[in-house]
């Protein structure tokens, strides 16, 4: 696998909190490598040295996702929020970990959702009407996504596509052009996008926004600060402090 095509391996391992050596011990996936080669034959590289096809996702100890799902989540997050000259990428700040923990916990299990039947599709104004918890929606949605990609992209799973093809797939899903076999693709995408943004912008205590990199990027001072002394004196003046997180102050 070419360095150029993949998310820098070291960063990637770091992002997943994987111990060095674990990944190395994994068997190479010839299939995936084939796909990369194929894709590179026809696709432009995004030139930023990241984001392209992965081989095996060394998601060291997910609480909810299996390894196939973890591959998909990492690739999805990396496509939604790539590392670029603007700021950190979603994978390096830990969004996959954020989503994994969320799915393993009360939110993913739909603890505060009304999930009694009968179930009907309803109108968009009536909101979410599936019988599925968020975690179940991810499970089926990822399987659907991979099957759909396999059909459209010569047997490849989502994470095996080139960055530009991944973007294309998500754009098509977002604009309603894709039909999944089991779940409504748009509903799955909406949840994925919400959780991705939560992991990007939320407090690092939940596993995303590692090193408060996102807050640093936008200039949000974090938590625990008060502005009684500054709200007036900093009118139309740049205010900057090193962002603080809940753990910094605990």
């Amino acid at each position: 696998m070419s360095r150029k095509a993949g998310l820098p391996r070291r960063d990637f391992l770091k992002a997943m909190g994987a111990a060095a050596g674990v990944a190395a011990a994994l068997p190479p996936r010839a299939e995936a490598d084939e796909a990369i080669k194929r894709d590179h034959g026809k696709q432009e590289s995004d030139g930023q040295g990241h984001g392209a096809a992965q081989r095996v996702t060394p998601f060291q100890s997910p609480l909810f996702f299996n390894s196939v799902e973890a591959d998909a989540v990492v690739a999805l997050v990396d496509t939604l929020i790539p590392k670029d000259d603007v700021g950190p990428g979603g994978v390096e700040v830990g969004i996959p970990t954020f989503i994994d923990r969320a799915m393993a916990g009360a939110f993913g299990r739909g603890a505060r959702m009304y999930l009694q039947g009968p179930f009907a599709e309803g109108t968009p104004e009536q909101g979410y009407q599936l019988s599925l918890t968020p975690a179940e929606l991810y499970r089926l949605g990822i399987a659907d996504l991979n099957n759909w990609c396999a059909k459209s992209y010569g047997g490849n799973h989502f994470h095996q596509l080139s960055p530009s093809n991944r973007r294309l797939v998500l754009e098509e899903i977002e604009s309603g052009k894709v039909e999944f076999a089991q779940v409504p693709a748009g509903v799955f995408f909406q949840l994925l996008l919400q959780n991705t943004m939560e992991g990007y912008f939320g407090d690092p205590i939940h596993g995303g926004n590692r090193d408060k990199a996102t807050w640093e990027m936008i200039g949000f001072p974090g938590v625990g600060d008060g502005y009684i002394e500054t709200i007036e004196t900093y009118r139309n003046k740049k205010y900057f402090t090193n962002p603080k997180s809940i753990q910094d102050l605990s």
Partner: protein
Amino acid sequence: MATRLKPVDIVIVGLGWTGGIFAKELSDSGLSVLVLERGNPRDTFPDFLAPNIHDEIRYAQRHELMQDASRDTLSFRNNASQTALPMRQLGSFLPGDGVGGAGVHWNGQTWRWLPWDHEPLTRTLARYGKKAIPAEMNLQDWGISYDELEPFYDKFERLCGISGKAGNLRGVKIKGGNIFEGTRQNDYPNPPLTQSYAGELFEKATEGLGYHAFPCPSANASQPYTNPDEVAFGQCNYCGFCERFGCWSNAKASPHFTLVPLLAAKPNVEIRTGARVLKVNLDEAGKRAKSVTYANARGVTFEQPAELVILAAYTLGNTHLMLLSGIGRPYDPQSGEGVVGRNYTYQINSGATVFLKKDTWLNPFMGAGALQMVIDDFNGDNFDHLREGFIGGGNIYCPSYGGRPFGFRPVPAGTPRWGTKWKREVVDHYHRTLFVNNQGSVMAYRHNYLDLDPNYRDPFGRPLLRMTFDFHPNEKRQADVLADVCVGIGRAIGAERVDRVGAPEKYSITPYQTTHNAGGAVLGTDPNTSAVNRYLQSWDVSNVFVAGASAFPQNSSKNPTGPVGALAFWAADAIKNRYLKNPGLLT
């Protein structure tokens, strides 16, 4: 069979602002008062402490302080031709659950509604005539004038330590306050909050346009304050974690520290948490409440007898309990008859997103729940409606609530929702975007109502409340006209770009809008069009009183808790001084 408990004099259902006010006022009588609250006990220590309370995911996204939809929800449809489906997760509104109710996680914008809001029918007829009122609109007076309620508004402002500036003090108009407000006898107990840069820009621009800007009256205290009950408040430090969070410094007025400690100190008051009232039990004739049935946290049911029952379970809970218990005649939209569930209303939002020039520093994270500049020039009937083709008005404001980064990510319309371009726009606009919003009134209509759902039940086996609601042309017109006003203000501020947000096509249960649900058990002077009288007393079951915004015959553009609190004081006063001496229907 539910275990029958020792009778008490007064049972209060719910411990938010209204339940807390009733409990405190009625406990003065020396009678035994029992407050039943479905949620948990909560207090600043140890529940709302920094830094843990400043967790946007836990509180703003996962709704930790709010109603749990797996237990308490409703079903919804836009109109009667549809099948209502359950609200499977919270969205459009975020009711409270636990001691303090939504008073723990509210913003604290604390209004006196305009005199017009209390008698819109009389005033509309007088100024525009009958033809101005759309056919399906149930426009109604309260039966209480602003002036009658004024001393009780004052009481609530003192309880909460409101920070603001009077605009009409005993008839003298004061620049910098709201010159459109009804006459007030006293100024606010505290001076206004310090404005943000965004507020300052809005103030200048609106002044240039000939409008009259003033600071929103705020229950976030601008200075340390001790209220008439000797309860001490901290000073707001503009941390920007207000709406959806508990306040760690007791600067945001909430029942959990302004009222609950007073109740706890009274020997004749008991607060029972984890006590979900399932039903009010009536006598055989259906004329008198005998008791309430509640389930404790383990689901075990009890029957609690009482002489007087106060429903203080929020708009939706109140209406639900009345329908389940047979208190008052249920509303039938076909015949237009019946009253319980009638005149359910909400609010409508529109406005402008205002992108300022590069290198403008709004510091959006410096904020407070009620930190905003407002104009009332387009509220109520403060402008000539003849040309406009609608009744009602808007609360036009520029908020500085805090720039919590999940919730506050303004980007120009048309920006992709993800990817590098999206990220660039987020970073580019975070510090230089403000909002000029319209929160508009919503009038009551014949086909917007609440009743019991025929298909869906809650975990206690009760039918869900069913909401049938949509926006009408009158409101959409208002939201569109006032969106243009917001755009005009945005331009006057000197924006690089202004994105207009017009009226929504339909009401949706999904995106958060406001927790200003109103109606369903409205007050009035005619039992054919109101469920409760001027004192919030059920016309049909005279030992039941129903507190909260369920009593509003239609919704104002302003947030509800000012009049909700004032009405609670007003009705408690009538109970204390008149009802208890001679129980029966108050006239």
